[in-house]
């Protein structure tokens, strides 16, 4: 009973992290950029769906797709105005810019929607469905399946399409990719749009589970980043694996440890990996990582 539930709790948390981690790892892969505002893109996505469903009264599923579109557009805008002008600068410059974008987005949303908590009003709180010794709600099942579907979609995109091949080429070695005629700026643009769309989708799902507020993207994004490192930077399967690893470790860990250590568990794993296996679970050997 307890163990099944712990594993399910870990999988739910891991699915939420994975939705952010996929975009993060793609963006990190091609730009070596820690996209600190990625969680805020998810947050804006969640608020977009809120506007569509709660203010315009349309079904949440419509809001979900509008959020994906807005997320993609926001990703493009952030890339164009915050990161592209800094492309040739020291690697720390875009990082600082990302933190700035994150703060700006939080405060712009707080300005328009206030800091109080919003909900999608999905009906009354009910006991979840009992099965195989654990309890799970419909929303949580939906989160897990949408996360799996988006992972599959990403896998197809990366492995089976031309743009996916280009993304991998640019991630491997940007200059070499350019020398064979790949337009790396175009690849970066597509990656930002796609990664941000995933983040926005994730934001809506997370908000269905935990409500909306301007700071909602911050912590999941940090966890997702830890998942990216643990799984192997730039590797999509690695990011997914890392997400579930951290989700499970946190939830199983605090069964034995005092619950205040929950965040510490994620970061402890991160440090252990940075020290002993910096390329992560599925990361490539060093030479492949150099630009």
């Amino acid at each position, binding site marked *: 009973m307890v163990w099944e539930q712990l594993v399910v709790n870990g999988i*739910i*948390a891991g699915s939420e992290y994975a939705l952010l981690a996929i975009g993060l790892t793609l963006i990190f892969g091609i730009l070596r950029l820690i996209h600190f505002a990625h969680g805020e893109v998810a947050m804006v996505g969640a608020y977009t769906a809120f506007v569509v469903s709660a203010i315009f009264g349309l079904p949440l599923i419509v809001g979900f797709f509008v959020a994906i579109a807005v997320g993609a557009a926001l990703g493009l805008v952030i890339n164009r105005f915050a990161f592209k*002008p800094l492309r040739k600068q020291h690697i720390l410059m875009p990082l600082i810019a990302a933190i700035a974008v994150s703060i700006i987005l939080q405060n*712009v949303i707080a300005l328009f929607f206030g*800091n109080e*908590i919003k909900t999608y009003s999905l009906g*009354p709180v009910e006991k979840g469905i009992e099965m195989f010794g654990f309890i799970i709600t419909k929303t949580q099942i939906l989160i897990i399946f949408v996360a799996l579907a988006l992972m599959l979609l990403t896998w197809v995109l990366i492995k089976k399409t031309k743009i996916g091949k280009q993304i991998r080429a640019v991630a491997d070695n940007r200059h070499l990719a350019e020398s064979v005629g790949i337009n790396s700026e175009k690849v970066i643009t597509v990656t930002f749009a796609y990664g941000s769309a995933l983040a926005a989708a994730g934001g809506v799902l997370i908000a269905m589970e*935990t409500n909306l507020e301007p700071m909602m993207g911050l*912590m999941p994004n940090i966890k997702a980043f830890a998942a990216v490192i643990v799984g192997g930077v730039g590797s999509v399967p690695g990011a997914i694996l890392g997400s579930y690893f951290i989700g499970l470790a946190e939830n199983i860990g605090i069964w034995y440890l005092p619950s205040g250590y929950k965040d510490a568990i994620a970061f402890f794993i991160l440090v252990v990996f940075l020290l002993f296996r910096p390329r992560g679970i599925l990361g490539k050997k060093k030479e492949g990582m150099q630009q």
Partner: protein
Amino acid sequence: MYQLLTWRGKKVGKTAFLGIIAIIAIAVVAFTGFNQTGLFGLGAEEEETVKIGVMLPLTGDAAIYGESVGTAIQLARERINESGGILGKRVEFVVEDSACDAKAGVKAINSLVHLKGMKLVIAAECSGPALSAAPVAEEAKVLYLVAIASNPDIKYAGDYVFRIAPSDNQQGKDIAKTIYKEGFRKAASMFMDNAYGEGIAGVFAKEFEALGGNVVITQRFNQNDNDFRTQLLKVKEVNPDSLFIVGYPQSYQLVIKQMHELGLDVQIFSADTFKDETIIQAVGDKAEGIIFSTYAESGTPEFERFKQAYRERHGKEYGPYGDYAFDSLYVLKAGIEQANSFDPEVLKESLYDLEYQGVTGLTKFDEYGEVYKPYAIMTVRNGSFVQYK
């Protein structure tokens, strides 16, 4: 002009320059936005004003309090200035954001005291930063008035530190007694891992065990957590008859939602932060019957006037702790007028002798700079907060 800007020997491109301009423009717009909501004081003549430092949680996890508390204290300032100021001087605020974070609180007070030279500071603030900033104020001999933070340790923070909100030392005992009186003996305790949660949960556990009850499990969570499932599972496994939980409104909503989803159904007790309409909106009938302690509304004529004035000014009811924030400036004003001086040294002696009847009832400091104000035990009935029994 942008050609003049260089970075690492290279000229900054036109697009980068435009990007920076855009960011500055957005920042300016954001700031003027704040100005319109009146969180920043307007400039006035140097000689005719008294500057008061104000610490508010404008951003971060408790930004919701920054809004309700900020507008209320600003209303107090407007009203005081309309009726001639304090000792003939207009009140001007110098606001610092603490983000409801203990580390940021130290930064905020240092900026107020050491950079901006404030002699009077109101901390309308979470317990974490209110507590961490107090020693800085004490050392610099700056009068430090705590408006809403309730952590018991603020009592011992120093001579220049006063507080107009009652301490959780009292609240923790009140709620423990209530739980015991209601016949519950096996309580689970879940609290937020910060100065506020830790303070009240500590007092509660001590008092509840002293009464003969048993705190069967204690679980901490972080201020910005949104997944409480495993903590709740641990609570469920020990089978308590009641759950005492202390956090911020966001955590309450999620704990209530997730505990019911996990099939844990016990009587919930909570504390002053529970009095927030958004919780009822979010969890609906699952909030029914939850019992919590909170600062009692004083019901004095001053309180009714404040309520009315806030409604007229902002078109809605005052938010959480607005009454305490409003009162804090008036208590300071009363102290200054009694001392006939703005000097913290003189003012602090005056405050120890002060008896001020205001929006939150009688403010009369003891030798620790603390007040006694009654708590009310409230519950949720038919979707609104009502007095319990």
